[in-house]
């Protein structure tokens, strides 16, 4: 029972983080497409800015993935 709850906790941490990242990266990609279509000469600049902002967006989900995997592989298994 306890192990099942731990697996559930890990899955929730990863899943909710992934939902937030999906929304954020989707909006980011849409804005990139819009900006690049309006001003194609800015695409190289937008690409590097996209890279930096994508790092900000996916930071929390990545931490969530790490903690979720720690719960599943180490805490629940041990």
């Amino acid at each position: 029972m306890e192990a099942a709850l731990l697996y559930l906790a890990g899955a929730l941490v990863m899943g909710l983080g992934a939902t937030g990242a999906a929304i954020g990266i989707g909006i980011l990609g849409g804005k990139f497409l819009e900006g690049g279509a309006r001003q194609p000469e800015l695409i190289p600049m937008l690409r590097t800015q996209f890279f930096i902002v994508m790092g900000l967006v996916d930071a929390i989900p990545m931490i969530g993935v790490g903690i979720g995997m720690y719960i599943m592989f180490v805490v629940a298994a041990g």
Partner: protein
Amino acid sequence: MGLRTVKFTARNARVGSNLKPQFRGKTTRRQARLIQRILAVQVLLTLSISAAIAVLKGAVPGYSALLGGLIYLLPNLYQAKQVLTARHSDNVRQTLRDLYKSEIWKMALTMVLFGTVFTLVEPVEPFSLFGVFILMQVIAWAAPVIQNQQFLR
């Protein structure tokens, strides 16, 4: 002598435009240098913090901190290489596809590395590992603000 504007059309979104890349030079190089500088600082910090933790707390927290830094750095170095050496710079759809592809690979690589560390390396000190991993993320947030990036002003 007005500004040349580009209409938002499906053709532009699909095949890009033949406009000369006026802003490609200095701004992009400066941003690429910023990314390289952030990554270099992160590599140096990972190594120095791991060494300091190893000396102060022992071998297990030390290598856990190093592993936390490497789990962050390896996917990010891969993605930075993909983004900074991309070829299709005039086609917005192709560029976005490449960016998404590199992001998916980065996420997959991070998960594989976490899984590998948690299954193969024993014992692991979680506070050191996640401490350095989170510190690297915080540096990535703080660096554009410190560098006074245009889009954050």
